[in-house]
């Protein structure tokens, strides 16, 4: 079971924070297929956020096929987001390491590299491609 932490100062909508924290837990393997998410009541009692927000987040996760609600039992993880390719000792990671070394040799600072990576990632995501639809804002 995981616990959600809502950052009140952040401009990110609370429902999106729940979705993102669940996705991250799935990516890191903290949540696995068959695990139960806390009930909406448990979440609102612990975080004091609006119940509709929690229900919206769970609907969103269900729509993405990550969890399923079983009547009277709770909400369960259906699909994991953990990818073997994103672990530390893979080929992709090694290539990224090489690229980072070249970027540093070219005189880029940490922030420059991070900005460059993010902008390239944004460009990639902006390009049309068969992919599950992203969350609307």
């Amino acid at each position: 079971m995981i616990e959600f932490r809502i950052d009140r100062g952040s401009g990110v909508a609370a429902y999106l924070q729940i979705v993102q924290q669940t996705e991250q837990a799935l990516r890191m393997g903290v949540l696995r297929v068959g695990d139960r998410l806390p009930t909406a009541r448990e979440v609102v009692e612990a975080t004091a956020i609006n119940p509709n927000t929690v229900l919206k987040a769970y609907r969103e996760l269900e729509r993405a096929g990550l969890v399923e609600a079983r009547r009277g039992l709770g909400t369960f993880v259906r699909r994991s987001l953990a990818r073997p390719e994103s672990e530390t000792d893979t080929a992709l990671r090694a290539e990224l390491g090489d690229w980072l070394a070249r970027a540093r040799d070219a005189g880029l600072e940490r922030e420059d590299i991070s900005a460059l990576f993010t902008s390239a990632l944004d460009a990639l995501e902006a390009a049309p491609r068969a992919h599950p639809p992203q969350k609307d804002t």
Partner: protein
Amino acid sequence: MSESPSPTPQAAATPQAAAATPQAPALRARGLGFRFRSRAGARWALRDCEFALPAGRITALVGPNGAGKTTLFHLATDLLRPTEGAVEVFGHTAGTPEARGGVAFLAQDKPLYPRYTVEETLRLVSRLNKRWDHKGAEDIVRAGDIPLSARVGTLSGGERTRVALALAMGRRPGLLLLDEPLADLDPLVREEFMGTLMAEVLDRELSVVLSSHVLPDIEHSCDYVLLLKDGHIHLAGDADELRATHTLIKGRADHPVPDHVVHARTSGRQLTALVRTGGSGTVPGDWATESPTLEDVLLGHLRAHATADASAAGTAPSTAEGAAA
């Protein structure tokens, strides 16, 4: 889920929902006005108020001290009668038996008998109410680890607030009104109290209106906002929509100020402003933009109000918040 044509056993789940007109707003004001009379003369505490708070929502009632928040609660619960216009609870005019049965009010001063134990208090109030939910009320007290045998006078502020909430919820209201419930609570207890309140909303299909000065606490709890200014409704709407239709901008103070600025201030060469964008999110000009929190939106509108007051001149300076603490 669609309405089932034949009666099914599960339909009995929410007794209070059945009594109310399904689409009626939880709280509605039509041309509502109230005028106080005192030795100093008559003063309008509320005037020309027109709003409809949707059922099933948690509305934050925000405004400076003296804006008319408590008066509005008193009108909704028939503790005061409107000077003009009307206020309705689930479509029933305040003061009618239907309206009284549908609404519970948690007043700021939480009138409780200090010598009674918690259990005696619950029993006393249960005798005054036909549709009393004793288990529900006791559960709220228990969730706060308050012994039923404790005398009310020995409880902390947070515990007394919880007992008052239990008394209000025991009446099975469809609409719960809370006047500054968080004012005298420390942050930990505030969070706990709001957690309990949110769980009640989820369990009972409850509509809530709560007034508060603690803006960060309502950020993610309230999904609807009613902002009162000088007895008038200044802003009313869905919280997400308000966030989406406003933008924070930052830039050079010598640039021409864009349209629809709610509130702006300059420090040195920098100008910071809250702008109403009407949903596009874009502001013409050379500005760094940021999406605001609900608190940013409310503060902007509250400050806009303060500036307008100052320029009006002659008005007494409003009491500083927290002065009583």
